[in-house]
């Protein structure tokens, strides 16, 4: 008998409109616990809007969204999720340690002092803890962003194009950190238009095109070439339909 893995995120017929502009059209999907789930799509496909709704920062115009079984707008599960984007969410004129201590207080992290030192060691920035964030390179910034994101030990990570602007070295380092989180059994939802990285990390994937789901599937056994072919054929058929 196959054990049913509970879904961390459940979306049913999500629709989002900004005035006349439709940002999502009836999007439905599920993300099981401890899964690395990637949403592929072009700019404007609706990826960031979807993440905003999942994080509770925006409300859907219609449809149902549940995160850990609850409406994310209710804020009750905020301590269980973390958002990482191409923005660092860090204060340039605070030190790495001060940034983490500040966010730790907002998340009511227990044993904050020990925890901040622990996560700084985890991302290899402990030796720079007293340095102002504005002196950090892009790669170091992204590592500190990860440290901020894992500080309160969340169960769900929402990653909105986190590789934007990173060089090769910083990208590899971020992939390494994400693989560690995946190995720890965390649920990770990534949005990206980078098929190579997305496929490398994913257990499951979904393709958003013209604000709707056009493909979902398992990434297991899927080659990059096969995904690329599928992705571009779906995009070109979408363009043809426009």
């Amino acid at each position, binding site marked *: 008998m196959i054990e049913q893995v509970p879904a961390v995120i459940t979306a049913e017929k999500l629709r989002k409109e900004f005035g006349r502009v439709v940002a999502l059209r009836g999007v439905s999907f599920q993300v099981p616990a401890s899964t690395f789930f990637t949403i592929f799509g072009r700019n404007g496909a609706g990826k960031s809007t979807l993440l905003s709704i999942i994080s509770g920062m*925006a*409300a859907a115009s219609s449809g149902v969204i549940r995160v850990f079984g609850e409406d994310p707008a209710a804020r009750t599960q905020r301590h269980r999720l973390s958002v990482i984007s191409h*923005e660092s969410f860090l204060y340039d*004129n605070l030190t790495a340690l001060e940034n983490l201590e500040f*966010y730790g207080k*907002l998340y*009511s992290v227990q044993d904050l002092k020990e925890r901040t030192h622990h996560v700084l060691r985890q991302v290899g920035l402990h030796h720079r803890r007293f340095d102002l964030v504005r002196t950090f390179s892009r790669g170091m910034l992204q590592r500190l962003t990860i440290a901020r994101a894992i500080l309160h030990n969340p169960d769900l990570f929402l990653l909105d194009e986190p590789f934007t602007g990173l060089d090769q070295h910083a990208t590899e380092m971020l992939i390494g950190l994400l693989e560690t989180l995946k190995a720890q059994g965390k649920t990770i939802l990534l949005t990206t238009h980078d098929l190579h990285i997305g496929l490398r990390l994913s257990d499951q994937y979904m393709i958003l095109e013209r604000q709707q789901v056009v493909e979902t599937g398992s990434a297991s056994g899927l080659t990059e070439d096969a995904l690329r072919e599928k992705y571009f054929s779906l995009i070109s058929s979408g363009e043809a339909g426009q």
Partner: protein
Amino acid sequence: MSVIWAIIRKDFQMEFRTKDSVTAMWIFSLLIFVIFNFTFEVSRLLMLQISPGLLWVAFIFSGMLGLNRSFQVEKENGNLRSLALTPADPGLIYFGKFFSTTLFTLIFEALIFPLFIIFYDIHLSLLTLWIIPIAILGTIGFTSLGTILSAVAIHTKQQQILLSLLLWPMITPIIIWSVKTTGDVLAGDLSTAFQPVIIRMIVFDVIFTTISYLLFEYVVQE
């Protein structure tokens, strides 16, 4: 309380480190006092009538600079969004920003008030102490609205213009009352209208601080 305190501490840490706001506010206030002092060659009586307005021009315009800077740092790396994503009550986040801006503005006002006394030859008496509650009430009225409207304006490209357009009409009553009561205090003559105006200022502050606290959650949502 720890959320409010964390935000106040963070804002003061950054300001003491960069001194971005305080430098701009200091230069601006000094310019106002110097320029107007040499522009108006009038009798002491007339100067007493003009000086409350000049004092509040310095307070409010430099306060605007501080307010803009305070929210600029929340915009730079998407920080306001990250604050809204935490489990912290948005109302507490509002109070954190509100108290930090208010405290910072009040400290700055306390620093520039001696300059005002020197430049405009203000005679001090026990009555002058009334300036303290007037400054507190006027500043709270300004920062309570300024904090929420800054959070609204932060999402726009023309942040400073929009903030001015939204804020000035709304704070006009509290500025008028602040100038009027300051004038009474400096003239050493607390008229019969003084106390009712102070009560109006308290009511204004309570109403707009409460409304801003209740609405902040919707302002920080996308």
